[in-house]
């Protein structure tokens, strides 16, 4: 099955990004396709390479970057939501790209399921 994901909450405050990550790992392991992960609302904060969690905690941002590098998962950050929150090209972690909301609608059109992770 072809999945699109929407992550609408920031890292650490909320489990949305963790759950989305686990979902992607599990879906890929089962042979499903992840068409895109779209970050919206405070979810855009998952994309900043300035993130520095304590060493004994998971690194939510680097984990996404590693996943993107290993599996070519398309990680897209909403430009309008990102600019509002100070997320710009120069702070993007590897594997993320900034684009428009059209990419979220495109996921809805082209996937079998668009799955939301958030409140």
């Amino acid at each position, binding site marked *: 099955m072809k999945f699109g994901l929407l992550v609408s909450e920031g890292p650490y405050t909320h489990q949305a990004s963790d759950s989305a990550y686990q979902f992607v790992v599990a879906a890929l392991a089962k042979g499903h396709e992840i068409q895109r992960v779209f970050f919206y609302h405070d979810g855009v904060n998952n994309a900043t390479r300035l993130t520095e969690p304590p060493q004994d905690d998971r690194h939510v941002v680097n984990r996404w970057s590693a996943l993107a590098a290993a599996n070519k998962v398309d990680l897209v950050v909403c430009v309008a939501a990102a600019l509002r929150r100070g997320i710009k090209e120069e702070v993007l972690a590897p594997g993320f790209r900034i684009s428009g*909301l059209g990419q979220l609608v*495109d996921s809805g059109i082209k996937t079998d399921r668009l799955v939301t992770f958030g409140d």
Partner: protein
Amino acid sequence: MDATDETKKMSEQPTSGGSGPKVKKFMFVNRKAPYGTIYALESLEVVLIAATFDQDVSLVFIDDGVYELVKGQQTKGIGMKNFSPSYRALDGYDVEKLYVDRNSLEQRGLTEKDLLVPVEVFDAQQMGQLMAQQDVILSF
């Protein structure tokens, strides 16, 4: 809505070529008050984009989401932009299917007359049936 050539906005189509544009049923479920969090505003931004993709878009207002449509919003005191006039502009984007949950209105002492756009008021069962018909549901 038919995806006829007349309604097709070429510049806004998804990038991939191939067969003609797919029209899916997109439902946006609005559950939050218009101010206090950004969900309502950013939901509206997705709705306007989805409309330019010529999809079959409907909006549902439920729980505190019904407050998004209330007339006479005064936001100066909290230093926020009153974005409620944008809901009036939706029909200009061919977004005309607006559904409001009856219980949510009644629990808040509101009626259809308090709302700034024409809507259909549905009970929970009707709302459930409508949701079951959708291809994509985004909940904010």
